[in-house]
């Protein structure tokens, strides 16, 4: 979907009404000959169903039914319900059934919009995405450009190593990074203290606590999310680079263009759709970061270190629970992400990945 090279050769032919796969094709031939009357009547029911399915072109809809039911019940309905809850005073009394939930209009929203913590957390999420997305894209693209220039063995080694970072579970990554920057015994503080002062090092780093304030904590999260995110970008960019016509790159080089100019004048314009999709996906992932922030900032313990996701979650799952307020915040979060998603869907359609 990300690269245009992945479009498939044949489009499905419009034969939906002629061959529903779940029904036997020729029951008449065999059934009439050798099967007893009881099962023949069963078959005729099946046969009639097959004819009905064929006549109405219902095959694909039947095949989609289970998936639609599961996705509908466990993803789409909860999303709608979040919208409904955001207009209700749903709290402890309501979830335990003591009092019925009441519709209270926009008061959850106005309460949130007047909460300085909400704006603080929104700001944190926005700043974080604004820093991390470009960093991840640049790092990933540079590694992609490096991979395409390596020999096959080295390329496999580097890309598989990088993808191991991508595949590392978010919980492990978070715990590992907290340990790396731990004030006692952490290797990062030790290395920073050893660094010469003109590189920003010095003894004041020894025992520096990274997770107790917003800026240091999000610096750690930045490094972690770049570390997690760059391999996916690199591998995708590499796949894109390999679809480029080599004659074009050669021609540019023959004309005396350096690597910088070749990238901006040839590579980037051709791969622009790929970069657009990667930027939008990274934005969605980084803006919606939850697990890593939850663990690094201390299990909802530090309110001033919340991002939007933590703020929303804490409204519902710290005592006393305010499910209505949480739903309003969740709705805001979802709408922001949906705006980015619309851009992503448009980019995907333009690339023909819906064909």
């Amino acid at each position, binding site marked *: 979907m990300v690269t245009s090279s992945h479009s498939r050769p*044949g489009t499905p032919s419009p034969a939906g009404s002629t061959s529903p796969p779940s029904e*036997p094709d020729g029951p008449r031939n065999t059934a009439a000959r050798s099967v007893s009357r009881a099962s023949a009547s069963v078959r005729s029911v099946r046969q009639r169903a097959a004819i009905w399915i064929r006549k109405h072109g219902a095959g694909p809809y039947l095949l989609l039914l289970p*998936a639609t039911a599961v996705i509908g019940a466990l993803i789409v309905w909860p999303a709608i319900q979040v919208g409904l809850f955001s207009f209700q005073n749903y709290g402890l009394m309501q979830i335990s059934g003591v009092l019925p939930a009441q519709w209270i209009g926009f008061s959850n929203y106005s309460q949130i919009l007047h909460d300085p913590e909400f704006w603080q957390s929104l700001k944190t999420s926005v700043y974080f995405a604004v820093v991390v997305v470009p960093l991840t894209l640049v790092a990933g693209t540079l590694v992609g450009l490096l991979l395409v220039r390596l020999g096959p063995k080295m390329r496999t080694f*580097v890309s598989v190593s990088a993808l191991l970072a991508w595949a590392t579970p978010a919980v492990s990554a978070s715990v*590992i990074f907290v340990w790396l920057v731990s004030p006692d015994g952490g290797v990062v503080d030790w290395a920073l203290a050893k660094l010469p002062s003109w590189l920003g090092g010095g003894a004041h780093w020894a025992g520096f606590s990274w997770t107790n304030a917003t800026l240091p904590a999000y610096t750690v999260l930045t490094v972690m999310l770049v570390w997690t995110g760059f391999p996916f970008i690199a591998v995708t960019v590499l796949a894109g680079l390999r679809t480029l016509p080599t004659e074009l790159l050669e021609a540019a080089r*023959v004309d005396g263009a350096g690597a910088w100019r070749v990238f901006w004048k040839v590579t980037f314009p051709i791969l622009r759709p790929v970069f657009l999709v990667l930027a939008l996906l990274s934005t969605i992932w980084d803006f919606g970061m939850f697990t890593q922030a939850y*663990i690094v900032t201390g299990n909802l313990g530090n309110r001033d270190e919340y991002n939007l996701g933590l703020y929303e979650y804490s409204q519902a799952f710290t005592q006393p629970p305010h499910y209505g307020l949480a739903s309003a915040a969740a709705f805001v979060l979802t709408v922001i992400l949906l705006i980015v998603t619309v851009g992503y869907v448009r980019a995907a359609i333009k690339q023909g990945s819906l064909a």
Partner: protein
Amino acid sequence: MTSVPVPGSTVPGSTVPRRARSARGGRRLRRASRRAALNLAGVLVALFALFPVLWMISTAFKPASEMYSLTPHPVPLHPTLANFRTVFSGSVIGMPYWNFLKNSLFITIVAVAVSSLIGLLAAIALGRFKFRFRTTYLIMLLIVQLLPQQALVVSLFIDFRKVNLLDSLVGLIAVYTAFALPVTIWMLRNFAATVPRELEEAAAIDGAGAWTRFWRILLPLISPGLVSTSVFAFIFAYNEFVFALTFLGTDTAKFTLPLYVQYFYGQNSTDWGAIMASSTLFTIPVLAFFLLTQRRLASGLVAGAVKG
């Protein structure tokens, strides 16, 4: 791609063989040093990617005396299994590691099996049929797959509380099945669409019924795709944190591995050797699984947005 001759680097008008030879030698030297520089950069990238995981493993084998030493060593000087013993004995949470591995594997395997089966049916519909809402359905899948889970979890928590699915592995299986489905369907439909229709038609002429055609033709040709989508679903379900955190609450016996590691870290946040040992026992299986299957994954990874 790396050895494109650049005209500026040739010596203009060099007809003397000796000068030509030395120019060629210079170019070869420059190419070799360029290659070395690129390889060095590659090694540095690999080191950056691997360092945190390697450090985790190394810490897991360090005795407490080395943990807080003034100069940390990359490799433990006196490797010990004491940290792993702490994790296996279950001295922290009251239950050994196996209990949580069992929970995680049970939930993951059932969720992957169910979502593969349901996803396969949907993928056949989307990949091999043309019908009215096909494009709409595909767009819905794209959107649904990117909805923030920490937003939906509030609503699901309230629903699951009503139907007694909190503190239950079944509840988690249902949620993981649902959230693995969009990506599974999205990737599988490409595989379903590439099976040539002529194959099926030929089999139909030879008298094969729809059921036979599915088992003998469609399924064998889609199964490589099924393998890679189930790997993605496996990694998603095995690593998932938000739903497990919210639904399992304080019932520590039902914890999955990610929740166990996080709880372990929260309970004794100074015993880094044991924390890293628990994290190693959680991480290494999924990384090994990824290494075994990564060849198949490469195309699928590039083919879609597959990280939640």
